[in-house]
């Protein structure tokens, strides 16, 4: 599932935080979904993982308990964790695999809730630091007035939307923050489905401003 038409990629700082394992789960879901379709960002993730490898090589040594190796070998010979279940063959949907595992399938499994103006959304279960949701915007419609209280990372899964002169289509990601006032409008012709991660306002003092400083020059 790759697309050569992707023009809007993940910000490098977001990729670095994902590779370092410090990105909130909701944002990681958007990163994993985008990288499932985008080899350029997949390669960037893997290169930041190589930095993680370098950190692991250079970190101090802790003293192991005397039986650490023996205990590990014992677990291996017992076959601990060796029988990973074969993933069931999944039919193709417009959802990348990491997203399907949160929804429990494709778009037909989404439990939409109406939020007005024909727009629907569904919150996905993620750990509390940030929220992940699917948004459904009818063709030609505008996103209802929504203010960014924190950072938002939006990925297009179906259709396309335009925002402040830029057009975002399947696979593209848009990064927004509360300094950005905007009204995304779905292209006419096809309903638009997006995956969006939003940082919870209370956590705004946490990782987000630090992470994005070099990009937004806050």
């Amino acid at each position: 599932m790759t697309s050569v038409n992707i023009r809007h990629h993940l910000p490098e700082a977001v990729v670095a935080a994902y590779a370092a394992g410090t990105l909130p789960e909701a944002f990681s879901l958007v990163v994993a979904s985008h990288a499932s379709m985008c080899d350029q960002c997949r390669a960037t993730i893997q290169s930041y993982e190589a930095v993680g490898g370098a950190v692991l090589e250079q970190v101090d040594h802790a003293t192991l308990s005397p039986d650490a190796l023996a205990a590990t070998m014992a677990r291996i010979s017992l076959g601990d964790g060796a029988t990973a279940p074969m993933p069931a063959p999944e039919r193709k949907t417009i959802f990348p695999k990491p997203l399907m595992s949160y929804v429990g399938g494709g778009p037909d499994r989404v439990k939409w809730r109406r939020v007005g103006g024909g727009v629907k959304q569904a919150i996905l279960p993620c750990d509390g630091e940030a929220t992940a949701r699917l948004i459904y915007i009818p063709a030609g419609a505008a996103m209802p007035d929504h203010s960014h209280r924190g950072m938002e990372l939006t990925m297009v899964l179906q259709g396309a939307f335009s925002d402040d002169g830029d057009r975002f289509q399947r696979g593209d990601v848009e990064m927004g923050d509360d300094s950005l006032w905007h009204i995304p409008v779905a292209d006419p012709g096809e309903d638009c489905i997006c995956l969006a991660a939003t940082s919870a306002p209370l956590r705004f003092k946490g990782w987000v401003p630090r992470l994005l400083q070099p990009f937004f020059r806050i």
Partner: protein
Amino acid sequence: MRILKSTKPQTDEWTQCLIRVKNDRDAQQFAMLFGHFAPRVKAFLMKSGASEALADDALQDAMVQVWNKAHLFDPTKASAATWIYTIVRNKQIDAIRKQRRPEPEDLPWATTSPVDPADIVEMSQQEQKLRSAIKSLPTDQRTMIEKAYLGELSHSEIADVTGLPLGTIKSRIRLGLERLRREMRLGKS
């Protein structure tokens, strides 16, 4: 006494070790790998906030996974240290932070065409260059990178992490992915 070193580029010894674990299921090679990485993995987990007991447990989980998942290790894509890092990072998120870790869709790495050994050496060389580059950074910059990966960034200098010389590694991984996609398309037709 001087030891003459071969100037021929080589794959780093731990990557070779993991390749033997992968191909031969060699317990002795695994013990060597354990001896090198386990104390680092434990230190890494404790610096990321795990208690010693939790780190001991998570370290064993991670090393059992290294054995069980060795068949998935692709040395043209990553060194042993990098591959083990990803296992430990995911273990840290799962066992210590109690969160799920969404990962990109798996690619079928087991392709029909044999691996070119030159690609393994080249990837290993690039990672060794990256490691020397990081080692030669000023101490505070190096500390910042370590902090970023241990989840304790306390300043705004994440730019130090994003400014690393990753161009060559990135383009090598890109090439590998392009080749894989080509084979997948050929396989389908």
